[in-house]
């Protein structure tokens, strides 16, 4: 099911009653989520991701704007009439009910023509339990299950009514690192099999990038960028998106453009034809550095971390906003650790320039 948000806005009154201004949790969301895709809604804590999800779910009513599923305007409908399934951050499995009873619970609320018999309910529950591979856990209570198992039950409960849209709120945050990797593959697989449009919220960019078809990056209630993960990574629209995506984080420098060249710490490091003169932020992806004894960019070498396949060179530069400059180079490059400094060339398409005031992208030609 296609999900369209039109000027979706949610404002809350300030918690501190003395402050009359309202808090804008979600500000003017406008985008269309194509049918059958897995969407990652990404942003730092408190940026309004969960509120956005609740608006789509129907747990919150928007201050302005519309939520449209397919061609149907569902803005005024309660959650159960929208045909959504939701997995909560702490799973919210009813602790006094077994996994089977938990999964059946949404079915027991069906009324009229949709009403199911006990057998039909059980059949539906078993089918969905098989999909998330918890068939042997059906008679257990949530307290007798691990975090990962509870989450599968929660997903099964969300899927049992065959929702038009599946919503997951921080689905992996309560799992340990190993389980997180495994579960995210699992979510991807289940989504592929059911082909249900899925939106999940996360603050972990790696999680969002790895399994999403499309990601939406949010900051303080405002959508910063919307696109395929690789597109957004390769072409971040503003400094926030550039800094938020990628591990290790992008290296940000105070820099200056003069006569079509980029200067970092007085050295002309890159030709940036078409960029206007003035002070800028230059953001360089860690993989944008090529070790070169004659390279224009020089920084003080601190240490190197060998990862096997590649090597992280950690150096420092006075104009770098990060604590250290991290560059990832192929391990075929032998870095002289005894040397006090290290020199690089920069890959033009891994360097992004941003305005000092607006932090918006300054585009330049790459020369080819």
């Amino acid at each position, binding site marked *: 099911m296609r999900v369209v948000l039109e000027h979706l806005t949610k404002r809350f009154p300030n918690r501190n009653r003395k402050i009359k201004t309202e808090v804008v949790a979600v500000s003017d969301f406008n985008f269309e989520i194509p049918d059958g895709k897995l969407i990652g809604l990404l942003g730092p804590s408190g940026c309004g991701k969960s509120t956005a999800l609740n608006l789509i779910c129907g747990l919150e009513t928007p201050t302005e704007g519309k939520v449209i599923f397919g061609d149907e305007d569902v803005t005024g409908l309660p959650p159960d009439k929208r045909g959504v399934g939701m997995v909560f951050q702490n799973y919210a499995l009813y602790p*006094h009910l077994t996994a089977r009873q938990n999964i059946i619970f949404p079915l027991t609320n069906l009324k009229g023509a949709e009403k199911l018999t006990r057998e039909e309910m059980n059949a539906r529950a078993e089918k969905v339990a098989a999909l998330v591979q918890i068939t042997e856990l059906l008679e257990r209570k949530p307290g007798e299950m691990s975090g990962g198992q509870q989450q599968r039950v929660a997903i099964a409960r969300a899927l049992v009514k065959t929702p038009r849209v599946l919503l997951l709120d921080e689905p992996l945050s309560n799992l340990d690192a190993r389980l997180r990797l495994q579960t995210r593959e699992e979510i991807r697989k289940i989504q592929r099999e059911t082909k249900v449009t899925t939106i999940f919220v996360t603050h972990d960019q790696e999680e969002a990038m790895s399994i999403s078809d499309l990601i939406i990056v949010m900051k303080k209630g405002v959508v910063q960028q919307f696109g395929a993960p690789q597109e957004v990574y390769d072409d971040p629209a503003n400094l926030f998106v550039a800094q938020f995506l990628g591990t290790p984080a992008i290296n940000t420098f105070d820099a200056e453009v003069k006569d079509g060249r980029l200067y970092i710490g007085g050295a002309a490091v890159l030709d940036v034809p078409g960029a206007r003169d003035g002070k800028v932020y230059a953001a360089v992806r860690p993989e944008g550095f090529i070790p070169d004894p004659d390279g224009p960019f020089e920084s003080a070498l601190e240490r190197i971390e060998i990862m096997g396949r590649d090597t992280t060179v950690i150096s420092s530069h006075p104009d770098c906003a990060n604590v250290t400059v991290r560059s990832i180079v192929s391990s075929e490059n032998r870095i002289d650790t005894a040397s006090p400094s290290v020199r690089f060339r920069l890959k033009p398409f891994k360097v992004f320039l941003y305005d000092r005031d607006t932090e918006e992208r300054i585009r330049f030609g790459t020369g080819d």
Partner: protein
Amino acid sequence: MKKNSFKAWLYLLPAILFLGIFMVYPLVDVLIYSLEEGYNSASQTSTGVGLYNFSYVLRDPFFLQALKNTFLLVIITVPLSTVLSLLIAYGLSSIKKLRELFQTVYFLPYVTNTLAVGLVFMILFKKTPYSDGMVNALIHLFGGEGVDFITGPYWAKMFVLCFYTIWVVMPFKILILTSALASVNPNYQKAARVDGASGTKIFFKITLPMISPTLFYLIITGFIGAFKAYSDSVALFGTNLNAAGMNTIVGYVYDMLYGEGGGYPSFASAAALILFLIIFTITCVNLIIRRKKVVF
């Protein structure tokens, strides 16, 4: 290890001494008194050992009246006060405006002296040469026949006693239930809403089971408290409860010891032990049900 255990006993000693002197010794003493037949407190002699005291108490019409009163009180007030408290607590946790004000108002009876509350009930219900009480005034207003609630028919007196008891025990229950309801993670209710459950279904199928441990705690302590009722009756009907026909088991025990027809520690002890057995049985039944019904 040995040394540690010595120290542990040393630390426990004050508590053990106090409990021994003020709890265990009197309990044993009560048991002994209850079995001594024809005990004379002046000469401290008895004529023999047996179960006569129990059979006397169980045939005493005053005791049977007290037993009936106590049971009625328990059966009426415990369910009613618990359900009412649950409704009020649920209401309190559902509203946002004036919530603190209402919480305070509902808690006020808890910090009010029992006898002061008794006075208020006198004004409400008691007939005096000057007035018939506020409730009767209301009944008259709607054209009804006035009832003497304090010295009148049994059902009227029982009604006042139950009313009073419910009113006195509710604040504590509301307080406990409000905090229990507040501790239920709102995500459960949200999840149930997404699952399409109605408000009533969410309350009965999700919220209520989640607060069931607290509910059972209140029911058990409610039973025990109601079985031990005495001061409420005194506050309403004065000290001569047997004459008023509104005595309770604890009241009977007290009367047997110090009342006008008192001075019979043996009968008092036997009655106290019967009360103990009743409470013990009911609590055991409660706990068995609890084990079956409360799941976490």
